[in-house]
């Protein structure tokens, strides 16, 4: 909402500079987002008189002018404007002055240019004759600005502008919050200014007649739905002459961003920006009857608005009709069929109160927000309609001639109730923490229009003014007191109470932070990817082979997507990670390791769902591709593979103190996985580690193998022992005995299963077993492999060789039997 500093002065003696005013308004809840200086003419521009105009000898479009600027000798100035002519009074920027000139390509951008003595196409030029845009007065660049004939040569241009009523101004752009419908007008803002600067508000005096009079002979008004339209006021002005508005009116509208149209329409806009009441002017001759009927449509229909657009109206749209047809969409926009035109002589001014909800619905359905609908939606002053109509009528009489018809037609079937609210002084303190003196409370509220109707010692009853429909409860009054009192004056207490609670680290945070810290140490980079995917991509990764028992659902689509790229919620973190991998491999990284925590979603009914029908849980994804490290001396570089990833998963589970996780191998390709390993505990799937199907990888634009693991973080958190303390296990102080065993087995034999057998049979002395070599090739025979295990034994005593031999023999026997293995010497 644009508010003119000069315009405000009509209603309140502001008394402070615009910067300070902006600060005060901002701190009182009317946030000033920007201040634009308008028409502040730079120094060094004076009124000049064009004495001679001759063609430039070397340029068709340029002229050479001789311009008197009040000095002894006239100046020679080269000019490019088509409209320059002998005898004109023009603004001249003298040598040495500086102008902010708009760029020809982007008129919004201005650069400061110093005017110098120059040669233009070889001809001397000593200054510049200016167009309006070059002086920052408007966007007009059609030609140089031609001044009034009686302009005094040599006087500063700013004096000239002031003499013709074009003062410099400042425009405050105010962000109006929904609780301040009153601030969508100059009077409304002026009311706050008066309260903030302790000055008096001057509302223009308007003679408002009682319902009836001659006006009733010119038009009848009936309202068919008094919920949607509580009041409809009509005033008639006869014999107007449609034409341009006077400069002062055009300037007012231009400054706040409106385009002047004609004197009648301009007046309605002026009054709307003055008091916040939207008005509409009908050509009375076009109104059949003449009668006005306010009624909602019963069926969907079409209507041509005054911007010549045909609009589709839903049933229930509130319309302003005459005896024959529809003439305007109530509160949104008038119709082409009844708009004021050059031929209009008699004007009917509409000033109504429409239900905010109804206007909001209509504006939304039509996708059309206008200055009028903006104000009706938020709620206009419930009492101002007659005042606004008469204010406009008298202004029209002044600027468009004609005569205001006596009287007024004021159809007011459903007056808004006047509201009065109790305010407890103690409650102000309970909310703000400040004891505000009762005189100050009363003073602040009465300055913005509230009236004391009852005053007990601890409770004051206030009547709510009609321009504050938003004030409905005591808390609204407290807010008004607080903002005018000043949040800055509310003191911070020296101490603040903290409820008794047990300080405790959440296992969720402990676990997440521990894993992130470790993963960063292992060379993983944490990433944040978009939760919204294109639908096709979401479907491709909604895949049971990596989602396990949660893969049965469908992707969750949004009903109103931002774009086709973002229609569907991710069922998995994998697609996001793949984009990151591709991006970084394409931007100079040889190897990529990423980790992400994030919510994933599917549509399915599960008992644990928070929102019925939608499964949502937090997921943990790790993925890697490319090379294990950079080329470096002393380091063997190699390609990352599945076992890098599997090692990370094992380390994560270990860090989470999750033990005894069962692994199930799925060596065959399925879904997006070339092969995969399932992790589960007690029958609950925790997640998968896998190699991405190579064709899928290349479809993703990645030409190197990708390995990933996606784990159900919510389930891991239910399983983790993090955050709970368990008893320590005493350190075994007896010596350990180590033995190596190598077996030759069929190449298809699963080493993991052999390790399980060794663990099982090694009880109770075996404390550790690891695979230290896997060899296929010379010496072990075709289709066979040698697997070497390092075993460590200990007990709560010194083990003898015999103890260990016995255990080893048991292990060897079982491995040989179960896995058809031969011990290798």
């Amino acid at each position, binding site marked *: 909402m644009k508010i003119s500093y000069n315009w405000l002065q009509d209603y309140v003696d502001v008394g402070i500079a615009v910067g300070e005013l902006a600060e005060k308004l901002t701190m009182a809840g009317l946030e000033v987002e920007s201040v634009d200086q308008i028409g502040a003419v730079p120094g060094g521009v004076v009124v000049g008189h064009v004495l001679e105009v001759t063609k430039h000898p070397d340029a068709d479009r340029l002229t050479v002018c001789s311009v008197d600027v009040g000095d002894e000798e006239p100046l020679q100035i080269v000019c490019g404007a088509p409209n320059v002519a002998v005898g004109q009074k023009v603004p001249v920027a003298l040598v040495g002055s500086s102008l902010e000139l708009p760029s020809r390509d982007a008129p919004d951008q201005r650069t400061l240019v110093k005017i110098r003595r120059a040669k233009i196409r070889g001809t001397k030029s000593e200054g510049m004759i200016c167009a309006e845009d070059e002086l920052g007065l408007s966007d007009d660049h059609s030609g140089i600005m031609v001044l009034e004939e009686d302009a005094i040569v040599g006087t500063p241009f700013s004096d000239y502008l002031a003499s013709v009523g074009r003062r410099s101004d400042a425009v405050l752009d105010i962000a109006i919050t929904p609780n301040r419908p009153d601030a969508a007008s100059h009077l409304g803002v002026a009311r706050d200014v008066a309260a903030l600067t302790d000055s008096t508000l001057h509302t223009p005096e308007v003679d408002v007649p009682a319902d009836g009079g001659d006006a009733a002979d010119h038009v009848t008004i009936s309202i068919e739905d008094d919920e949607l339209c509580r009041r409809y006021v009509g005033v008639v002005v006869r014999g107007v002459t449609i034409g341009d508005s006077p400069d002062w009116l055009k300037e007012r509208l231009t400054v706040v961003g409106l385009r002047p149209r004609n004197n009648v329409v301009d007046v309605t806009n002026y009054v709307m920006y003055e008091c916040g009441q939207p008005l509409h002017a009908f050509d009375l001759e076009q109104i059949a009857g003449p009668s006005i009927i306010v009624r909602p449509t019963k069926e969907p229909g079409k209507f041509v608005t005054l911007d010549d657009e045909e609009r589709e109206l839903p049933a229930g749209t509130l319309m302003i009709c005459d005896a024959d047809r529809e003439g305007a969409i109530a509160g949104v926009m008038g119709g082409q069929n009844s708009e004021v035109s050059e031929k209009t002589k008699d004007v009917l001014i509409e000033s109504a109160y429409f239900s905010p909800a109804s206007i909001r619905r209509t504006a939304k359905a039509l996708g059309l927000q206008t200055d009028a609908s903006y104000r009706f939606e938020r709620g206009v002053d419930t009492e101002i309609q007659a005042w606004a109509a008469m204010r406009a009528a008298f202004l029209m009489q002044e600027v468009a001639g004609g005569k205001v018809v006596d009287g007024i037609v004021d159809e007011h079937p459903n007056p808004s109730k006047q509201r009065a609210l109790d305010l407890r002084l103690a409650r102000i303190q309970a909310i703000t*923490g400040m004891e505000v003196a009762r005189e100050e409370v009363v003073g602040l509220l009465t300055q913005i229009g509230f009236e004391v109707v009852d005053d007990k010692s601890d409770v004051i009853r206030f009547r709510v003014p009609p321009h504050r429909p938003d004030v409905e409860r005591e808390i609204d009054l407290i807010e008004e007191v607080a*903002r005018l009192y000043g949040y800055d004056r509310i003191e911070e207490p020296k101490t603040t109470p903290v409820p008794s609670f047990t300080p405790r680290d959440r296992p969720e945070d402990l676990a997440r932070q521990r894993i992130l810290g470790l993963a960063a140490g292992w060379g993983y980079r944490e990433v*944040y990817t978009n939760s919204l995917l294109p639908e096709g991509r979401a479907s491709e990764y909604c895949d049971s082979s990596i989602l396990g028992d949660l893969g049965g659902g469908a992707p969750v689509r949004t*009903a109103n997507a931002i774009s086709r790229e973002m229609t569907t919620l991710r069922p998995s973190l994998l697609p996001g990670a793949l984009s990151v991998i591709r991006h970084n491999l394409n931007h100079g990284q040889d190897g990529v390791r990423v980790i992400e925590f994030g919510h994933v979603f599917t549509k399915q009914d599960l008992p644990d769902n928070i929102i019925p*029908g939608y499964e949502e849980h937090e997921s943990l994804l790790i993925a890697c591709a490319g090379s294990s490290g950079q080329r470096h001396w002393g380091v063997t570089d190699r390609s990352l593979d599945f076992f890098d990833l599997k090692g990370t998963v094992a380390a994560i589970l270990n860090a989470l103190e999750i033990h005894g996780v069962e692994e199930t191998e799925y060596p065959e390709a399925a879904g997006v996985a070339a092969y995969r390993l399932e992790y589960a505990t007690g029958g609950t799937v925790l997640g998968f580690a896998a190699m991405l199907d190579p064709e899928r990888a290349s479809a993703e634009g990645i030409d190197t193998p990708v390995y990933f693991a996606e784990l159900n973080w919510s389930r891991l958190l239910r399983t983790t022992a993090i955050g709970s303390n368990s008893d320590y296990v005493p350190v075994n102080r007896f010596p350990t005995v180590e033995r190596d065993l190598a077996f030759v087995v069929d190449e298809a034999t699963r080493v993991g299963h052999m390790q399980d057998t060794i663990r099982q049979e090694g009880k109770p002395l075996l404390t550790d077993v690891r695979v230290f070599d896997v060899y296929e090739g010379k010496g072990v025979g075709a289709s066979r492999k040698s697997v070497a295990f390092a075993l460590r034994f200990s007990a709560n005593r010194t083990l003898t060789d015999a103890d260990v031999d016995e255990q080893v023999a048991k292990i060897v026997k079982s491995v040989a039997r179960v896995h058809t293995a031969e011990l290798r*010497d």
Partner: protein
Amino acid sequence: MIGKIIGTRMIDTIEKLREEISRHAIDSQEALEEFRLRFLSKKQGEITALLKKIPTVAKEARREVGQQINELKRLAEERLEQARKQIHEGSGALAEIDLTLPGRPHPSGSIHPLTRTRYDIQRVFERMGFVVEEGPEIEDEWHNFTALNFPPDHPARDMQDTLFVEPSENGDDGVLLRTHTSPVQIRVMEQQKPPIRVIVPGRVYRNEALSFKSYCLFHQVEGLVVAEGITFGDLKHDLHVFAKAIFHEDVRMRFRPSFFPFTEPSAEVDIWWEDETLEGGGRWLEILGSGMVDPNVLEAVGIDSEKYTGYAFGMGIERIALIRYNIPDIRLFYENDFRFLDQF
């Protein structure tokens, strides 16, 4: 029986040799050669001699003996290698080690700036007695809007601003992607009676086109305090402490009246950002929205708004991170270029 005896004798010999190998002084190039000849020489070495004797050991003990001899051989070799190194280094060969060679690198990983910022914020509040809560990203209208005192026709409920989710087969209409973390306020108050002092970090969604300053999703930290005697002064105090901890001790801040459906009175909070290049030496930057919990919100969850008062606030983690790290474009957080991530 005989074999067993021979095996035992062998083991005694092995044991004796093991001791000698360990004790044998090797302090010169000559001693080095002497050691090698005595124990490891293929022709005359004592260990080689032992190996040749294995076939004479009883079958049952052969394995064991063989292993022990091999062990012995390894020990001797290690000892030799170790001594060789010591002798070389001791004789001025130190210069052969180039200490200026770079050390073997660790792979570099990183924690995302949004996570860092989230936990920086979270830690401050946890130290001030706040408890952390989280909630779902798919929400219903009750928690996201209605219980938070958004009127039925509030513009924020429009499709223009909020991403709705296609209804499930037997689910309800009005399921959406939460537009703020405030629905968790409601979830907490539905389950917990005052005093309440929680913060809620999490991801939220807006139906916005992507640009340098807006993304279709971002992250918030929400705060809620409900207890007897809580005032706007407490709100100012706690947020001031927060700003000092996150920005700097002398941070200038201002509370500017504003409007949110679920708080009243409401305030937007700005901090003063110094910038020499600007007129006035800096500018006010909005960092969060806040206010006293609206009585309607307390009543919606069955808390007596006469007895209890409270305050709430919400801030964008991205916004705090943009300010702290002077990042010009919010999309950088989601591009995940390693050259960006590496800086955090």
